[in-house]
């Protein structure tokens, strides 16, 4: 799966979980400060990424990811 496809699907998941307009989602957007994710939504986001891409991520490292671009890179690492 190429990065463009990963990015598209990551943005779809973010919009669904955080219930926001996909237009607000930019590569540098911070989940907490820019997109308004609280701690519970942060976990739900990670869970939704796992489901979307059928992967199991390292919990500690996944929780350290803060931006949309970071999430795309992190997930890409699991899909190599």
């Amino acid at each position, binding site marked *: 799966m190429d990065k463009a496809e990963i990015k598209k699907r990551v943005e779809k998941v973010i919009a669904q979980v955080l219930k926001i307009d996909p237009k607000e989602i930019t590569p540098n957007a911070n989940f907490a400060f820019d997109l308004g994710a609280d*701690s*519970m939504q942060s*976990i*739900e986001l*990670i*869970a939704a990424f*796992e489901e979307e891409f059928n992967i*199991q*991520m390292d*919990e500690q490292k*996944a929780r350290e990811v803060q931006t949309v671009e970071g999430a795309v890179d992190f997930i890409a690492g699991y899909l190599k």
Partner: protein
Amino acid sequence: MKTYELQDVATPNLLEDTFPYSLPPVIKFEGKIHELIDGKIVEFDPNEVKTREIHITDTTFRDGQQARPPYKKDQMVRLYEMMSRLGGPNGVLRQSEFFLYTKNDRETIDACRALNLRYPEITGWIRANKGDFRLVKEMNLKETGMLTSSSDYHIFHKQNQTRKQAMDQYVDVVQAAWEAGIRPRCHLEDVTRADLPGFVLPFVQQLERLSEQVPDHMKVKIRLCDTMGFGISYPNAAEPRSIPKLIWRLRHECGITPDRLEWHGHNDFHKVHINGVSSWIYGLNALNTTLFGFGERTGNPPLEGAIMEYVALKGGLNGVNLPVITEMVEYYEREIGTHLASNYPFVGKDFNTTRAGIHAGGLRKFEQIYNIFDTAALLNRPPRVSITDKSGSDGVALWVNEFLGLKGDERLTVMKVSKIFRWVMDQYEKEGRMSSITDEELEEQVKAHLPEYYAKHRKN
């Protein structure tokens, strides 16, 4: 001033000599204790407790029954059998005393003896009345406790006697015990509120003089009864409330050896456990207790607490079977119907349950952070979390993993339980819930959101 430099170590120092986790934390002493008695410094060596034959005695069926409706015979026999297993083959739980006055009391003793258990030895309890020895003798008991009240509150205002009349009566009863071939154990009732030089010490010295005429195994035992919980273990507390001074005088001025001295406390001032343990440390061998601390008014030293302290002081089990404590509380609640406070140490429903999410997070990462010792191995009680809106995702994950019995890499992440976590939070945020989530409700959530795990780990 001594300067301390940060030691930025590569591996953590978990102080495992003191906190072995496989046992309750070990109690260590680094020097002697000094007490001022009659203007002189007297030394106590707390490390002596490591080698002295300290042990526990029980009064669940005597003092314990004064605080609650009587136990049925079957219940006492069952508890007695469990006490025997708890204390183990070395007699850490050495004796248990019983009433002798009713037919039920006597039938219970017969039924306990029929189990043919070495420990705890069965002893009796009678009032200071010569006629009551008939009961002790009929039951063929080797030892009995007897009331020998020692404060003027009791002598003057309860017994309407002078000190001499009281002492003469007590001595008569002790002589009668010997004549009947029974070892007397004098219960110095209210001793922490008594005139020590004016009554207690002359009385005990007289008992000791009389004991010279009998063999060692018949010499008088002394139970120090802190009837109202006035005893104080603090260094240099004044008499008669000072436990260190009381024990020292009985040992060094009256000649009572540690094996013949016992402490019996009450919890009126929240000091019952620490006073009992201090009495061990200051030089007597027997600590009298009741199961879960049930006893007159505020209760007695809790048996299970004393057992735990014994292990901590000795640094080993010496045959003690700690998981029986959990059996006992389960039996107590199920069959006897008395429920203990959920936060009661070692046995309460929530004694090792955490509710705070941040604690649950710690527990999930490294159990020892928030568990006092290996409660799963020593008490059959793994640490648990109780789920509320404060439990966090870590708390929910910990609960689910414990519920499913998952270990190591099998354990589910917070992501895997996120839907259950969402349901929990909605209960509070959307439904306005005020109570904890029950285990049954959480089980339903596991069935709904993690059906494959439920089927694999819980279905059967």
